[in-house]
């Protein structure tokens, strides 16, 4: 089956700064793919290339087999995106924002919307200017999760959520993967990735350093460390970044 996301040797320069330096990323249909890397390693830049918001300087990025820069509008019909920093229109209420964002994709299922609002305990009548970071993130999450997208791109989607809503998010992701949706999940919450992801890409300074299923990667770390104990994702992450 054709990969949903296929990135090979991706390069992105901002002036004289090289943000992505030959990055590889591959996500198969129906997978939850964890996307890990320290701050500033190029996760968000990769996502913005995949969304066609910025143009690759070199290499290849394919979404559903097509060029995300040239075919942005068509491809966006098939995906939903939640950024890490959600900035909303200060004068609109949460409810208005969710409906407006949903209308771009032809409208939301009202039942699903209501159910998600209840689970995330979001007050829809408040103006966005009075929302906290977590509540702004809930607005973007409800607007995305209430769509029937084939691909969900989450860029640190829960960095402002409390642990209870974090658990709600994990439940929601489990539900939609059960229905065959594909998910790219960039996150710093290793427990979340460990719990949800089937496969993993770890990047550093704009380059892919590890990639594969979580089981494979654990085995690799396992061999280099203590042979009697399966490595946790945290150990794996640290083994990649700690100076040797």
């Amino acid at each position, binding site marked *: 089956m054709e990969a949903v996301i296929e990135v090979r040797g991706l390069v992105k320069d901002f002036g004289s700064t090289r943000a992505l330096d030959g990055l590889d990323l591959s996500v198969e249909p129906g997978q939850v793919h964890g996307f890990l890397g320290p701050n500033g390693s190029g996760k968000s830049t990769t996502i*913005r290339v995949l*969304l066609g*918001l*910025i*143009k690759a300087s070199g290499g290849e990025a394919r979404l559903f087999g097509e060029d995300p820069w040239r075919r*942005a*509008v*068509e491809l*966006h*019909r098939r*995906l939903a*995106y939640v*950024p890490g*920093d*959600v*900035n*909303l*229109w*200060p*004068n*609109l*209420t*949460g*409810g*208005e*924002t*969710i*409906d*407006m*964002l949903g*209308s*771009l*994709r032809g*409208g939301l299922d009202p039942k699903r919307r209501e159910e998600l609002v209840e689970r995330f305990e979001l007050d*829809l*009548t*408040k*103006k966005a*200017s*009075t929302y906290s970071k977590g509540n702004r993130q809930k607005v*973007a999450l409800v607007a995305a999760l209430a769509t029937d997208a084939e691909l969900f*791109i989450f860029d640190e989607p829960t960095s402002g959520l409390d642990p209870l809503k974090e658990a709600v998010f994990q439940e929601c992701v489990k539900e939609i993967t059960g229905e065959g949706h594909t998910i790219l999940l960039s996150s710093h919450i290793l427990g979340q990735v460990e719990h949800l992801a089937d496969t993993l890409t770890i990047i550093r300074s704009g380059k892919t350093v590890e990639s594969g299923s979580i089981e494979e990667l654990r085995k690799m770390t396992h061999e280099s460390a203590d042979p009697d104990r399966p490595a946790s994702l945290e150990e794996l992450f640290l083994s990649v970044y700690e100076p040797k």
Partner: protein
Amino acid sequence: MSRFTGTGEALRFALKRDRLLLPLCVVGLIGWVGLYVASYSGLYGTQADLNSLYKSVAGNPALVAMVGPTDGLRTLGGATAWETLPVVSVISAIFAMFVVIRHTRAEEEDGRSELLLAAGSGRLATLTAAMIVTAGSLTLAAIGWLVVFLATGYEAGSSVLLVLSILGFGYVFVGTTAICCQVTAKARTARGLVGIVIGIAWFLRALGDTGPEALTWLSPLGWAQSTKAYWDDTWWPLILPVAATATTVGFALWLLSRRDIGSGLIQPRPGPDRAHPSLLHPLGFSLRVQRGSIIGWTYLLFVYGFAIGAVGDNITGILESSDALTAAFAGTSSNIVDSYFATIFTVLALMATGFTIGGVLRPHSEETHDRAALLLAGPLGKVRWAWGHVLIAYAASALMMALLGLGLALGLGVVTGDFGETGRLVASGFAQAPAMWLTASLAVLLFGISSRASVAAWGLLVAFVVIWSVASFGDLPSWIVDLSPYSHVPAVPAVPLEAGPLVTMTAIAAAVTTIGLALWRRRDLL
């Protein structure tokens, strides 16, 4: 620890942040006055020139309303003061508005001021520093103006008085802006409020100078002109701006010390939990984003038009009683009121272009506030989205200028009982739109080139204002005058409406907009 702790640091930080912008603005303000002075001393080098200026202008009620009392025009200094004081004062006030808001309310709205407050900065430090930086920059500009006047050979004492009069007006708006920043939580709204106060100050003076004199004394612009620099030097009115500055600054600091950080005196209310169907279309949503400023500007222009229209009849009355004036204007235009209205249309078209540029640059502000990605990650094309905002701004600009014409006609009609001018005045308002589109299309072009280049559009507007203001009374090479789109708008309703230049400007605006949007399609989102 005092509430002013950290003012010094805030001051240094503000100066560092604006190390390029402030010197550029100050030099610009000085250079502009220099341009005036150079063109004036060239045009009115002899007493005979001045006498003929006096003859053609003195007592003309339209010019008294637009610019100010004409009694001082017999001397070069008096003529210079007459023309420069109102326009330089207003520009100084707008400068004060931008700088104070940029360093206070805008920072607070974006959540940056909390960092400073949490780091031990006093509650009043940022506002105090912003006011000092602004007042300091205005003072530097004033010193520059003084040097220009003295170097050109103007009388020293009167020059000091003129410069202090303008500076006083700028100071009053440092305090006024500081108050407006406490009232609303949004920088954009605060700028709107200050703009309204500047408009009221101008209007009260215009009414007072052509009618009940008491109104002049309610306006800070009236105070500035009542010093009568170069012809009847009067120093005591300088006390008025000093007192007003102290009061407004004190009141602003008092308000700030009582309110919550991040909010204004007006709190946002809860709203609907579901979107109105109109929001569910990209164009409807863009309209909603621009709605506030469209309503504000349209309302303002209409009310302004109505008030000026009502005064217009007053001007006809004064004019008819003076044979000399009727004779003076007989050659230039059939109707002095029409040429007065023509000037009003140009001035307000220049002002309202501020709305047009702000409107077409909404995509830029959505981009810098990181909201654009949320929309553009959906199935909404970049060009379609940006074009929606541009279209709304263009249409609203034409509509509000037509409504300005309608306001003028209704104001005139209510007083005279004759509404026969309505069609002509609405058309005259509408005729201003192509120049506004053309200026705004250059903003679209800059936005297409890069996000950072977009702000240069405001510089273009300022340049067109300078060209208009210097060219109206002074002397500029015609190729410079021709650079401004506003120079190519027929002076309707004083002359017949000629479609040629309007069609050409619309065509250029359309082409430039298209190029701008094509460039935007090809560039990265910020």
